């Protein structure tokens, strides 16, 4: 949608105005205290402003934003640590619109009008009791879960009401005070939203965008943690000098900067590949790189702060836990690298054949 950096800047600023209520990280801490209850006030404003339709085409009544717009916004708001499922919600509209069914349209209308939040679950295998096959992040917000049913051979997209899962598969708290709901759809009725290979394609695209969005958020989180650390290196004095004057710390800080910049460059480049045959590989690359970078970087941030960095009271803890949680969501670095390998080798063999 946006042709220029300044338009993307406006988009980011308007998202910030909604999500930043001027309480620094007060809302993040409040959500921690009230877990699993969520405060839907800001979410109502997000819906009213139309954000869930960001990635929907203008023909469908959306904003027609592209993946580059999305990563610019998410990188730009990640430092707010807003409790709302802002990033996760963005991929839902294009997926539901691709279904072209009245049931999918109804789920979307409920979402857009703020009545019921639908979030997408991805499939994976997990070291969990009961052999769950799906997981949805930000689960305390998800009234409905959009997920794949591959049990019958053909691909079906389902909407499952949270009440259908609450008993057997309760939401589990994550380190950053979000939640994950692991589940399997065995014995769950759900509602069919669409079926067939086209819908499967749209579902895979949603998964790619979730990864890319998480990668952008990881870069934003890492950048904020790094900036906090740079400030600390400049003001904290030991041995009569700012600790940031020590070469051991300067060199590590330089490495952190290089890693963060490179990950951001890769995320932006990957966004350009969305919609092409490179999409899956590019999003997996971005997520793998951003995950490894961000977790490595926030560890260094804690270390450079010393004991204060290890306290819950100091905000770095919130960024640390957010990075850890995001890094493992929608496919962690290792899983993404598996996909990168598979896709790359295929591409290489194809190229050699040509």
């Amino acid at each position, binding site marked *: 949608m946006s042709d220029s950096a300044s338009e993307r800047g406006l988009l980011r600023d308007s998202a910030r105005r909604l999500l930043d209520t001027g309480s620094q990280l007060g809302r993040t801490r409040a959500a921690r205290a009230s877990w699993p209850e969520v405060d839907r006030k800001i979410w109502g404003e997000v819906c009213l402003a139309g954000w869930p339709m960001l990635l929907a085409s203008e023909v469908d009544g959306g904003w027609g934003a592209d993946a580059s717009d999305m990563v610019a916004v998410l990188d730009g708001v990640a430092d707010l640590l807003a409790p709302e499922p802002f990033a996760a919600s963005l991929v839902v509209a294009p997926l539901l619109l691709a279904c072209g069914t009245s049931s999918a349209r109804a789920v979307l209308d409920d979402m857009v009008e703020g009545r019921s939040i639908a979030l997408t679950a991805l499939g994976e295998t997990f070291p969990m009791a009961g052999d769950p096959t799906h997981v949805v992040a930000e689960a305390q917000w998800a009234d409905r879960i959009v997920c794949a049913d591959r049990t019958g051979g053909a691909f079906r997209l389902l909407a499952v009401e949270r009440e259908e899962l609450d008993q057997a598969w309760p939401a589990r708290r994550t380190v950053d005070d979000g939640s994950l709901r692991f589940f399997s759809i065995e014995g769950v009725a759900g509602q069919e939203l669409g079926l067939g290979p086209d819908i499967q394609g749209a579902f895979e695209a949603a998964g790619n965008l979730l990864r890319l969005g998480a990668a952008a958020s990881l870069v934003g989180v890492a950048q904020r943690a790094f900036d906090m650390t*740079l400030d600390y*290196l*400049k003001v904290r004095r030991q041995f009569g*000098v*700012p600790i*940031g*004057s*020590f*070469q051991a*710390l*300067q*060199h590590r*800080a*330089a*490495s952190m*900067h*290089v890693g963060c*910049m*490179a*990950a951001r*460059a*890769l995320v*932006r*480049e*990957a966004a*350009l*590949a969305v919609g*092409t045959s*490179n999409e899956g*590989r*590019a999003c997996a*690359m971005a997520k*793998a*790189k951003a995950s490894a970078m961000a977790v490595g970087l926030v560890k260094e941030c804690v270390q450079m702060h010393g004991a204060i960095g290890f306290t819950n009271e100091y905000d770095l803890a919130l960024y640390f836990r957010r990075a850890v949680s995001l890094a493992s969501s929608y496919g962690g670095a*290792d899983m993404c*690298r*598996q996909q*990168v*390998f598979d896709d*790359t*080798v295929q591409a*290489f*063999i194809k190229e*050699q054949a040509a």
Partner: protein
Amino acid sequence: MLRPETPEQSAFRAEVRAWFEAELPPSLRDLTFRPARELIMPWYKRVSQRGWLAPEWKRADGGMEATPVQQIILIEEAARIGAPDLPTQGVHQIGPILRRFGTKEQQARHLPPILAGDILWCQGYSEPGSGSDLASLSTRGRVEGDEIVITGQKTWNTWAHNADWMYALVRSNEDAPKRQNITFVLIDLKTPGITRRPILTLADDYELCEVFFDEVRVPLENVVGEVDKGWDIVTALLTNERVQIGSPSNALRALQRVRRIVRLLGERLDASGRDKVAQAEIEVAALTAAFLQALEDLAAGVQCDASYLKILASETTQFVLDVEQGLCGPAAALKSPERVGEDVIDFSELFLQSRRLSIYGGTNEIQRGLLAARVLELPKGR
């Protein structure tokens, strides 16, 4: 490059690929060591005549004003076919310096032969006692009439034994404060009083040289900028001019080797190896993205930071070669390459050579110090 190509870009790629296939002699493909000057210069000249030696240069200076994507396409295609590493110190180092700081006469005299491949340049910065602390250099340049008379020693000069000219830093004033007494000078290496001695490297090649100066008389017209003001030329951020230091060229050459090994190993590659290969792919994609964005920023008038690019490009290449070594098993120690069908696999050569990437052009420790001070604005180091 992950982004899709426009039809024009795809056509350019096809043109580059076809031209390389037709023009690059098989004997020059897949070499790790730089071929001898007489073997490589015909190819250098052919690339130059095609307009692709200095793609980023302005048309008026003999370049093609290539877009960022065109530059990446050229780099990727050169890596794909295994094109040899050209001696480009003229194109990437002294060329940009002369364009920014040289006189009209200096530009007219020196830039065309760089492009034509008639004159090869080498750098004369480091000395036995002055490496990272470059400003402590002690090679003297005594101004006498309209000459500057140079005595001392330079070292670690890449390909100096094959070069025609050297751009060098000399101490021109004993009385002025440090850094305000250094002169940037262009030296014709045929001038009497110069002795060159090649240095065998850890990689068993003669890439480096030491150069001795004994009362070498250089006309003052060969001084770039003003006498005693040479340090400004070296330290002027020069970010725009130095953006090529972030080229993914070396990393892509390294990655090409990894890919060949992967293809050879096929199903025998274990999960740990696959993970490392994926990491290598990802790191090179990130470097390529970073370089592309630096070029795009430059085109949009946004400054980029050369230290960041240098660290990223050199360490990415080294990482990819670590991965290659890991994939090779005991063959990793083999000195010479192996031909397997159409492919050449070299096991250790590039890995050994790549040690220098984090040393030359200001060690990565120096770059990290610069980055900490200039970009991160951390307090003065101790």
